[in-house]
């Protein structure tokens, strides 16, 4: 826990009960050193803070009636957000997503960690796939989970292909035995399919 990022992240956590490990106290430092470090940590923390940002207004959000549309403002809210990604990771196991897609490699369902998005790789596309299903086997979940859960799932699913910011990813692997936490994996940056020029795939 020598990284100021790590210590800061723990300090900023809002609900310790939803945490991912024992609380970590900041390491005590000398007075001169401490002042400088605190300043440095604050400076560093400023741009990184949004990864933990959440709407805590306290009012549950209304569920939308119509289909998820392009340019939904929730995309920006959920993607790259550490809390929502971590929540999505939890739902991913609870709702048996891992039974078909495993930890991104696929099985009954297609892989989610590669660069191919059969039905589109934007947050809105992924949410639509989750809520309304797809004809070749993806079941619809709109009557089994909330929209918020769907957005959180989408945020996690998108993180499997290493597109979100690395500092928003969970340091905890949900899988029991078999692969390393996402933050420890050496993954290559994948350009979303709808942004990549044709023929630029690197595999």
């Amino acid at each position, binding site marked *: 826990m020598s990284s100021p990022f790590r210590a800061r992240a723990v300090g900023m956590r809002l609900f310790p009960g939803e945490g991912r490990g024992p609380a970590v106290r900041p390491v005590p430092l000398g007075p001169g050193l401490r002042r400088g470090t605190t300043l440095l940590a604050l400076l560093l923390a400023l741009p990184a803070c949004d990864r933990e940002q959440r709407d805590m207004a306290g009012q549950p959000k209304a569920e939308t009636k119509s289909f998820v549309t392009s340019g939904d403002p929730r995309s920006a809210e959920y993607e790259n957000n550490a809390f929502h990604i971590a929540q999505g990771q939890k739902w991913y196991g*609870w709702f048996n997503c891992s039974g078909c897609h*495993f930890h991104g*490699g696929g099985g*009954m369902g297609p892989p989610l960690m590669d660069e191919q998005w059969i039905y589109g790789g934007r947050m809105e596309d992924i949410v639509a796939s989750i809520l309304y299903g797809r004809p*070749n086997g993806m079941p619809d979940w709109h009557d089994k989970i909330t929209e918020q859960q769907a957005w959180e799932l989408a945020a996690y699913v998108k993180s499997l292909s290493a597109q979100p910011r690395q500092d928003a990813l969970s340091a905890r692997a949900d899988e*029991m*035995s*078999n*692969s390393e936490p996402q933050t420890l994996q050496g993954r290559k940056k994948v350009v979303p399919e709808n942004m990549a020029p044709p023929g630029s795939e690197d595999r």
Partner: protein
Amino acid sequence: MADRHGAHFLAAILAALLLSFAGFAAPLAAQQNGARPASSASPAEDGQWTMPSKDYASTRYSGLNQVDRANVGRLKLAFTFDTHNRKGHEAAPLVVGNMMYLTTPYPNHIWALDLAKGGRPVWVFRPHPQPASQGVACCDVVNRGAVYSNGRLFFTTLDGMVYAIDARSGRQIWGTKLGDISRGETITMSPLVAEGKVLVGNSGGEMGVRGWLVALDAGSGRIAWKAFSTGPDKDVLIGPRFKPWYASDRGTDLGVHTWPPEQWKIGGGTVWGWISYDPKLKMIYYGTGNPGPWNPQQRPGDNKWTTGVFARDIATGEARWFYQSSPHDLFDHDDINEQVLLDMPVNGRMTPVLVRPGRNGYMYVIDRRTGQVYSADAFGFINSMDGVDLATGRLRMVKDKEPKEGRVTRNICPTASGVKDWNPSAFSPRTGLLYVPHENLCMDEGVFEANYISGTPYVGAEVKMYAGPGGHRGVFTAWDPVRRKAVWEFNENLPLWSGALATGGDLVFYGTMDGWFKALDAVTGKQLWARKLDSGIISQPVTYRGPDGRQYVAVVTGVGGWMGAIVSAQLDPRDPTAALGAVNAMKDLPGLTQPGGKLYVFTLPR
């Protein structure tokens, strides 16, 4: 002296002649162990191949012997046929008269090819199964083939339909809906047709499905009887005629009481493998799949009647006996493998038995009248089990290898896919040996509580598979069921997922997942011929007499299935848990072969 010498010389020549003649015409004396297929279930050779198992005894043996050990090296390609389907092809092609019938995986087409015209297609049957069925098929969208009987072809589709079609025209005669994909039920098996009944069971052991076997009337497609694998006795068709050999299988409603409350309703025991039939005893034999979920801590008890073999009366479906190979299964050891019906000496007396190379790695010899287990010997590497107690029939488990929540159990051998999975073995009456294509894999497993959500996976386990001792992932074993030991073994780099074929030319054929189609000497295990094909082989090779009187050997490529899904579904090798852990053992396969269903037919040059 001269005369005597001459007489000796003549006798020696005569003896040599006799010996060499015996080598061709009679069973091979040196190998003879007294085992032979149940005669009523294995009719005389007619040069056809009308059901995947070849006959009701499930020998997968053809008496054709034009292609033999001496000339197999000259085998040449006669013709091919491309199915244009890139999923895993597990089905056996059928040959009836001058026609060949080829079944594909989803979307489950049947092609009729005219063998008198070089394999020209005559008709194709396209049933249009529901596309959503692909999302509830655990291990690729496979189909294990059609069956021919009395002018009709019977086959199943992934979305749970059974069809009867006119073999001449390809027109549908009837179609019956049996499976419900919204509950995770699919159908992948090849039916068995006997006594005017079409027997079909469901798949979906990884989806919290309740297993069953249904008998349809071959004429009308109406359900004659349905036997569940879990639940109360009346659902399982257990009545007064049910006489299991072992005490642990006796009692009322064990299909309810050996489960936590209500768990039997989503408890698995699917029927997706092979059925054999003894026309003399009028009994069918088949195995039931794994209990659900995989996590054993969610289902304390013996979980009857999963992971065992049933004997039933074909007319009524009444259960006659049951033997549970893996009570309270810990490792997904579906007991659905083939049962080869043999008559062979047991303790010095000819006995009607069924021999089954089990998923758990034991070669069971079971009395097919009573269900008594005569022997159960390991035919591969096992460290998670310690043999079978023949007095109680119970499998002995190794405590350290039991998957438990909150820990990862390492180095469990064999894997969930077993020492041997679905791919069937072949029995040659000439050598008395059973030829078993199988695996040599081990796994790490962690289990956790699974949530039941209808139509989604219900497993609760994470698995990572890898090669077993020796590093080779597959073995082709020639097993002597009488002497209870392997006679020879042929190691393969990749797991074997294709069936075996044995012929009267003392050859055994099988394919590898990287596309080698091979012929071995049935006596010695020496490789005599091999040909690299465009895609890996996970199907069932067959042989037949063509319209020109020559012997042909046919095999279908198209890699896939559980072990091959990494290629057919383009899974990502960076996730070792993908495809229930199979991907970790098969990371190299995408570099060794490519998807593609194609029929290859070989024969000797004129």
